[in-house]
């Protein structure tokens, strides 16, 4: 365990170092443009000339301006510290000021995305579980639905997303919550369906035979053997499902001009040219994904231990 932790930390540290190193060549042009406008002399003097030269040459000829690249307002690539500061400014600092639910707080936007994720997860999981039960019970349903379930995942949902939003607003559903939940359930149902089918089929012939000797009915067989046996599989797919639901909620915000939610922060950051907003929203989404997966993982641990399945 500690060995793994050490490896993970080393890799993370390496990533941060590479990131810091990459900031210099990525930002040198922006830094030079800024210095140029401030009246300082930089080596190829006009921006047009600078465009012809590679970042490395620019860095070699203007080594005094490299440091400026680490402290830009609108960097091409922000430093990890800048992203961290921006994250704190839009979360913790807002809480301390008592403006947790302000429109500029990522907690507010994260909450909006979380709601869609949650409803999408609920819907997707329900569809997945019901679908799996139907597939396990009926061969006709399995043969007609299963290929389409696979195809549905090969269809890029982002192509459908704008249509889902147009349709639901025409049908008279207000707000963006519902279409976003629908998109996220579309991505979420498949892993649950596949995992659940596997889980419901996991009892061995011997176990099924044993229930037959008890003269258990079909319903009893299902409730007392298949359903409990499928739980470990269900939880494994729930973890994939919740991450997929979050991706779906953010994808649902991206192409649709949403104004609140983490995806909307990315969109607005792009439109207003504030890369820091994009980066901090991305990291907030990553943290949210981590928290959600960990929550399900803990639940799985506790529940399965209570059922006597795993120590």
């Amino acid at each position, binding site marked *: 365990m500690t*060995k*793994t932790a*050490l*490896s*993970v*930390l*080393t*890799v*993370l540290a390496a*990533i941060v170092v590479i990131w810091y190193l990459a900031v210099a060549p990525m930002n040198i042009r922006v830094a030079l443009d800024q210095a140029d406008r401030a009246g300082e002399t930089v080596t190829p003097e006009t921006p047009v000339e600078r465009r012809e030269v590679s970042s490395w040459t620019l860095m070699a000829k203007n080594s005094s301006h490299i440091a400026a690249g680490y402290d830009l307002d609108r960097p*091409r690539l922000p430093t990890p510290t800048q992203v961290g500061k921006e994250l704190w400014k839009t979360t913790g600092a807002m809480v301390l000021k008592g403006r947790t639910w302000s429109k500029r707080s990522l907690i507010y936007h994260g909450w909006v995305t979380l709601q869609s994720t949650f409803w999408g997860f609920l819907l997707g999981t329900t569809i997945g579980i019901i679908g799996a039960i139907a597939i396990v019970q009926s*061969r*006709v349903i399995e*043969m*007609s*639905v*299963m*290929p*389409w379930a*696979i*195809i549905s*995942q*090969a*269809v*890029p*949902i*982002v*192509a*459908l997303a*704008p*249509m889902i939003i*147009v*349709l639901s607003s*025409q049908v008279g559903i207000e707000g963006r919550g519902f279409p976003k939940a629908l998109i996220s359930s579309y991505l979420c149902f498949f892993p649950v369906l596949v995992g659940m089918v596997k889980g419901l089929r996991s009892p061995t012939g011997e176990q099924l035979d044993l229930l037959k000797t008890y003269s258990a009915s079909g319903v009893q067989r299902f409730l007392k053997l298949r359903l409990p046996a499928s739980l470990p599989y269900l939880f494994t797919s729930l973890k*994939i499902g919740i*991450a997929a639901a*979050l*991706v779906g909620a*953010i*994808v649902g915000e*991206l*192409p649709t001009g949403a104004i609140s939610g*983490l*995806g909307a922060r*990315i*969109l607005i*950051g*792009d439109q207003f040219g504030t*890369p820091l907003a*994009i*980066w901090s*929203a*991305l990291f907030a*989404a*990553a943290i949210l*994904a*981590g928290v959600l*997966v960990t929550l399900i993982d803990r639940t799985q641990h506790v529940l399965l231990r209570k059922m006597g399945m795993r120590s």
Partner: protein
Amino acid sequence: MSWLIIALIFWLAAWAANVAMVRSKWADTTLVRYLVPIIFGLTLIVAWEALVHAFNVSAAILPAPSDVAETFAKSTGMLWEDFKQTVLKGALRGYFIGAAAAFLVAILIDKSPFLTRGLLPIGNFVAALPIVGVAPILVSWFGFDWHSKAAVVVVMVFFPVLVNTVQGLRETDAMMRDLMKTYAAGYFSTLIKLRIPAAMPFIFNGLKVAATLALIGAIVAEYFGSPTRGMGFRISTGVGSLSIDLVWAEIAVAALAGTAFYGAVAWIEKKVTFWHPSQRG
């Protein structure tokens, strides 16, 4: 009203046909295995057509499949342009670059158990993140043309393939490796003759996941800026100008391309990993 009745009759007939086929003695033939889902899909399309006609849904909200098919046939030239831009240039190039890079990195990392241990949890975590969010950043780095789309696809494809390849390379057991040792096989011949073939089922799992992600990445990146062609561009402008039938034709292209792409990867998998239990059953 008559539309609804026709749809209902069609649905009942199709369902009866499917039940009959599955219960017949030919249930396991290839023909039936293809026919059953095709009939099910047709039923859905018939139901869609009937509902649109029965409730007089405006074409600006939901066009009937027949209208979509008509638009599709009329604008094949434009659809082909968009397909070339988004799928052939953006998605496929990004897919190959990303998968190849992930494969090479996996083989390099695999030499160090320390790095492997560290990278697996991180890679697994990153693979679950909404990476599509980097699309606007990459579009501003690489410009509006297909380069930025391919870049988004590279980033999205990289981690699932990396994680699966690293996991697959660890699949051989001690017996197999000992056997290679008794043959006096070196690192490279063990890698090429034993470990990479053994990793293939895992690699293809990653490649299949990546295949579905590639198109998503290429299309989303186009929402953030593109030349005046491409599937994402056409969809976002089509929604704005209410040419919904064109949007659905574009969605049909995306669906066909996605399915064909996934199918191709699955077909290659079948040819390469014919020895694996999951392919024999």
